């Protein structure tokens, strides 16, 4: 790649172009000031107390739950592709010798210079971080946090172990475990749509909270199916909470949202830890086979 591309007269033209873009975009953003429409959001907010106390969780994992399924897929695919770049799953055509695959080498570690105190405190910190990740996960429906945050915190614990102890990471996650947990996580999320699909025909209908067929909200026409009680209890009751709010007390349940969060957490743990693992330790198919 030659860096001459943006020098000289081309550079000046580019700067002018950037200025035009900047002026155009910023003037239009200024126009937006005071003109923002509320649109659909008041409706969402009205429904929120019947579901998760954490309004954000019900937005992200219920109303827009299918969006988040694909968004989670971005992380999964990101891991798949990053690991592919390192060498997992490079394919060759039978009988055709193309160029040899580009083989990256793993990182060299030098952990001997590390402070003794850091080494001593490494394991407790990792354990506490993992516990914190699980706390964030369990609080998904009631407080800030959720599956994605849990995964990120967990993987930071894993990265910490890598930095402190090199190849002897106390949090010893094997490649197979990570790939499996990532895949299982995404499929838990995907399959949690199934109960709603089978009973009401709507994918990812929240059978636990069951806002629309249980008569919590009056005046809905067109929904033919009613969620059977057993499903409602199975997915709803373990997460039923009493919300004492200024305008009354609501018995609300987040239904499948906390379960989705567990799937999401697994997925993120698998994906991000796998990226860390492969970028630091490298990937070697032969080594994997001998395990």
């Amino acid at each position, binding site marked *: 790649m030659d860096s001459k591309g943006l020098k000289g007269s081309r550079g000046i033209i580019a700067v002018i172009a950037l200025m035009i873009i900047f002026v155009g975009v910023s003037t239009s953003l200024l*126009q937006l000031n005071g003109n923002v429409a509320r649109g659909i959001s008041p409706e969402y907010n009205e429904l929120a107390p019947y579901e998760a106390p954490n309004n954000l969780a019900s937005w992200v994992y219920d109303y827009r739950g299918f969006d988040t*399924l694909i968004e989670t897929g971005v992380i999964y695919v990101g891991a798949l592709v990053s690991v592919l*770049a390192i060498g997992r799953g490079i394919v060759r055509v039978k009988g055709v010798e193309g160029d040899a695959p580009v083989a990256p080498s793993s990182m060299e570690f030098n952990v001997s210079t590390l402070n003794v105190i850091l080494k001593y405190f490494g394991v407790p910190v990792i354990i506490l971080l993992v516990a914190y990740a699980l706390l964030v996960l369990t609080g998904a429906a009631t407080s800030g946090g959720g599956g994605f945050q849990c995964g990120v915190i967990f993987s930071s614990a894993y990265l910490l172990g890598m930095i402190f102890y090199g190849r002897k990471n106390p949090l010893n996650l094997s490649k197979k475990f990570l790939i499996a947990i990532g895949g299982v996580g995404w499929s838990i999320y995907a399959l949690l749509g199934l109960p709603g*699909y089978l009973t009401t025909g709507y994918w990812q209908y929240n059978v636990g909270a069951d806002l629309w067929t249980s008569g919590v909200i009056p005046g809905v026409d067109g929904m033919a199916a009613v969620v059977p009680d057993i499903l409602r209890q199975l997915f709803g009751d373990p997460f039923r909470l009493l919300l004492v709010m200024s305008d009354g007390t609501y018995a609300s349940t987040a239904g499948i949202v906390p379960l989705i969060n567990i799937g999401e957490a697994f997925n993120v743990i698998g994906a991000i830890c796998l990226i860390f693992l492969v970028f630091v330790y490298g990937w070697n198919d032969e080594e994997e086979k001998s395990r």
Partner: protein
Amino acid sequence: MNESISNLWSIPLFIIIPILTAIALNIMYNRKKAISVTAVASSFALVVISALSPFGFHWFTGHPAVLPTGGYTYRADLLGWRLSLEYYYGPLQQIAIFLASLLLLFVVMISIKSLKKNIGPYISLLFLTFMSSAIVIMVNDFYHMWIGVEIGSLIVAGVVLASGEAVSQKAALKYTFFSALSGAGLAIALALILGVTGYSNISDAIKAMPLSNGSLASILYVAFGFTVLSWVYAGGLAPIHPLKADVYGASFPHATVLLQAQSKLMLVAIGLLLLRVFGTLPFAKEVMLSISVLTMMLGVVMAMLQTDFRWTLAYLIVSHSGLVTLGISLGTVQGIIGGLFQAINDVVYMSVLLLACEGVYYFGRGTSIKSVSGIAKRAPWLAIAAILGAFAASGVPPFNGFQSEIILIQASLNYGMPELAIVVLMVSVTTFIALFKGIYNIFLRPDDALNNNEKTGTPVPKILYACLAALIFITVLFGVYPQLAINFLTEAALKVVYIPWVP
């Protein structure tokens, strides 16, 4: 054709089946038998579902629409604000997804046959490619379309990377670099439209668009600009076409079949979105038209210069994307029909050419016109397929390319722009020259190495011939009975023009 259904059974399956298959294949990794059974079965299931499914909507998570008079409804044909994410499966979607799943089935079978070891992640990426194109063509929601484009570009990078060569790594890196730019652009466009209207559902946003408020028009213009940026990126239009051509050229030809299908569907989906949302703004169609014309010409000229058949095809795909967008950006019913029909035909005949190129690749000497020649003697059927594909691509009757190009030419004449018709003609003629330059050198030119009975490479698998035969059958079928496809597309085009709130 009951379109008041808001819980059509087939729509979630188009997304969930590929996801679950991809996860399973990725975990299987190396177990070839299990992989081939799972992959073929689930892609076959997708073909069947897309053929059998009726039309309708699906409101994911099952939240109803809010009636303007208060209260809620589950009927999709009533006017209301959608609370949940909306997908639509209509005639256009049916024909597009049916073709995409058929191609997926072919590509999966070919890649299982021809690739060795560790094919799990690769085939799972092929399934995800299908998934992203299904999302983009069905979705009726800005935010979700953004995610579809985003995950689609990531998957493209993965498919390209899987061939593991330095050139493909470079192509993938460059492509993902721009995905950051255009993904962010589309996100800004989404934020602006969301800010102006408050609805992320496209139909609702169009209904709520404050067109009367002149000061907000500039916001819409900026949103339009950013959406065009992502359109250009996802479809590989000029000026990003060199990157997209690199992507097509650097991946295995059979993977390019799916990649080009995906990008054609993205072009159609985002193009229709642009038309529906911004079509009434002055200059919008003109901007889209000029991009299409530039893409057509630059692509076809670059295709002339290539010496590698893969790269020739790559630039031709880019150039023919311009034909698709030309029809869409005309904005008339006839133009849209032409554009959509061109997209479908393009996917089919380019697949024929790409699979023929894949056959050449198996002879083990690459696909450059300098290094390989005389294939016709060793694989006559491959040569015939390539020649038929070239006829279809350059618009020779009785193949399908002819039918859609004639519609496009008529549409541009009716629009009052005979110049566009000339450009279309030039593109199809030059396509012919560029293709036959490659085909002559690779298939027909006599070869010295052949006389020495030199045996390299691997025999072309039978399944490749079967797929080629099926695809050529489709090209002839659409060429002889274009009404088969046009009946489907007319309904979609009419809706875009006259009833903008239905995709």
